[in-house]
């Protein structure tokens, strides 16, 4: 890092030391970057490996998993004939759909209200607390509630439970987006003659839609996926898919479970892809245009 004395006042080269240091930093940064990239790729592979295996083996013509005896569709076929599976699937979808919608209807107004509060810490705690409690606690707490009120367990008890853990998600997403939007837009709307109500529906709400959609998506998935809470509050007629699979898994590994799981995976992928596409289309088609900031 020495200074190159003879160069001062000459061709205007920077002191060698600083350049070296910067370059060294860049090289080691690149090394780190590559390491992280490789790691991430490996991680991704590990994340997907089990599922790939699962799907692969759902086509395995053998009861004992590991040995591959040939390709077959028969496990899938038997699934479609299985009424209990179809019923569980229907329940899951219905419950997830209802829960998501109700959670959105409750969560959006709650977020708007919280956003307007000066001291919102206390009240927002009420909405976030459920996420901090272990699933198992929430599950049995609701079970006790329904038992005390003599409400029979069924689809709607499950929906009630699911809504309760989905509302915080909606509130979280929408509140975050509201804070991100900032006051200026709202004020601009007022300035242009919009009443608070008009401002909300014409300016704020359209901007909230992406957040609401994301929250609903996540809620839907959480509902579909939920096992523990559902376990406690579901009735005999309201088996969801996870509960059904649980029953099967307890009895041991079997290809039917593989096939069912593989199907669920496929359905989920389709759902997600569809939602992503819908979201993209709803977004602004930003055509190639002017440079972004300062110029002419």
């Amino acid at each position, binding site marked *: 890092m020495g200074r190159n004395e003879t160069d001062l006042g000459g061709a205007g080269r920077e002191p060698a030391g600083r350049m070296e240091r910067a370059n060294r930093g860049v090289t080691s940064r690149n090394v780190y970057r590559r390491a992280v990239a490789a790691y991430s790729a490996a991680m991704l592979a590990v994340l997907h490996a089990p599922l790939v295996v699962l799907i692969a083996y759902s086509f395995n013509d053998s009861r004992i998993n590991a040995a591959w005896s040939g390709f077959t569709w028969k496990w899938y076929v038997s699934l479609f004939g299985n009424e209990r599976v179809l019923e569980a699937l229907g329940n899951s979808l219905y419950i997830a759909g209802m829960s998501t919608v109700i959670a959105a209807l409750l969560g959006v107004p709650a977020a708007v209200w919280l956003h307007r509060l000066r001291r919102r810490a206390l009240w927002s705690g009420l909405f976030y607390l459920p996420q901090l409690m272990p699933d198992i606690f929430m599950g049995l707490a609701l079970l006790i509630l329904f038992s005390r009120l003599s409400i029979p367990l069924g689809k709607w008890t499950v929906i009630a439970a699911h809504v309760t853990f989905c509302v915080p998600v909606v509130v979280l997403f929408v509140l975050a987006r509201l804070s991100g939007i900032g006051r*200026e*837009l709202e*004020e*601009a*709307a*007022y*300035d*242009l*003659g*919009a*009443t608070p109500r*008009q401002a909300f529906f*014409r*300016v704020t709400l*359209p*901007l909230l839609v992406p957040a609401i959609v994301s929250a609903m998506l996540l809620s839907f998935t959480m509902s579909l996926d939920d096992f523990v809470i559902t376990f406690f509050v579901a009735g005999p007629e309201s088996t969801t898919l996870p509960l059904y699979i649980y029953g099967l898994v307890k009895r041991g590994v079997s290809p039917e479970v593989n096939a069912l799981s593989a199907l669920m995976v496929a359905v989920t992928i389709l759902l997600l892809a569809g939602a992503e596409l819908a979201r993209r289309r709803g977004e*602004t088609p*930003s*055509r190639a*245009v*002017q*440079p*972004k*900031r*300062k*110029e*002419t």
Partner: protein
Amino acid sequence: MIRLESVEKRFGDRVVISPLSLEVEEGEFLTLLGPSGCGKTTLLRIIAGFETPTSGEVLLDGKPITHLPPYRRDMNMVFQHYALFPHMTVEENIRFGMRMKKLPPEEQNRRLEEALAYTNLSEYRRRKPHELSGGQQQRVAVARAIVNKPRVLLLDEPLSALDYQLRRKLQVELKNLQRDLGITFVYVTHDQEEAMAMSDRIAVMNRGVIEQVGTPEEIYLRPRTLFVAMFVGENNLFRKGGTTVAVRPENIRVVPESVLAEEERARRAACEPVAVGAAAGASAGSLAANGGVNAGSVTAGGAAVGGAVATGANGGNLAAGDAASYGGEPGVTAAAAATAGGAFGTVQDIVFVGGLRKTFVRVDADEPLVSGVLPWFDDSESVYPSGRDRRIVISCDTAGSLPPLRKGERVAIRWAPEHEVTLSC
């Protein structure tokens, strides 16, 4: 047209605006000028209706609107960061206000086309804000506001996010717009050049108080308070008989030692033959008759301060030639000669900027000044608010003017009495 009466704004214990009153005339371009935190934006927001004053009234045409919400005031605002609705196109943004007012479609279209044409945005009407440049966004913000034909347009530092060239261009455009439409503009900025360029009147604010209201000329030539004198343009401060006076750099003459010597010789030469009322030799503080004046002569301290020797009113003499040689007009020189202001010093620095030459002169510590201008380099008080060295005097003239000066040169500085502006602190 707009009147603020004893408007005060406090946030808890913090006083943001002390009770102040202000009148905005119809059709004028008034600027609220001041540094960050002076309360100018808060004041604007009070006028707009986004803040309610803690006490005081806001009146529009004599009618109180203090508690009227923004959507019921006949004013529109151009926000600092434009606040364009990101999910709407340019056209939809501009239409918004008209839709809220429920104007008939033909009227809406007509005004829309007008505004688009005026702001050169016609070809961008279907773009969304994030597809526009900063300057274009700013124009949309303006178009969106004026299309409602408000009586007052409020602008909150609308050009602060733009670069220098663009800002200059848009300043001109905004000024023209205001003139063409005849709308009253209330403009907020911290950039005093901007304020000076665009405004009919400027209200200079500092820490919640309006220090002075006046035309740009008044503000510049006759600042009333210390703050205004220092905030708008550059100024030199001197203490005089217990008060502070300010002299603009362009009114300070820097006279190099060589020229001083010349003058002294010329004065001596001139004094001998022309004896009419002229004091001979070095006499203290003497005046010559008939316009022949011996300026700033020796004080009790005995150090000779060079004076400009002017001729009699009939002009044309060595001294007058000398006067011309350093760029002073004879008349002024004579007047300057009659005056008070002057001191010796050393040139610290010379800077060329914007076609001007700025000379920074460091005045000698022990030099008393003449004619009642007491020494102002008393270490116990700091006259300049922002840590500028008290002994540095700034002089300004056009680049390339004579005499050429060098760093480290010994010089004299002087100014004329009519250029002193007395300030109240």
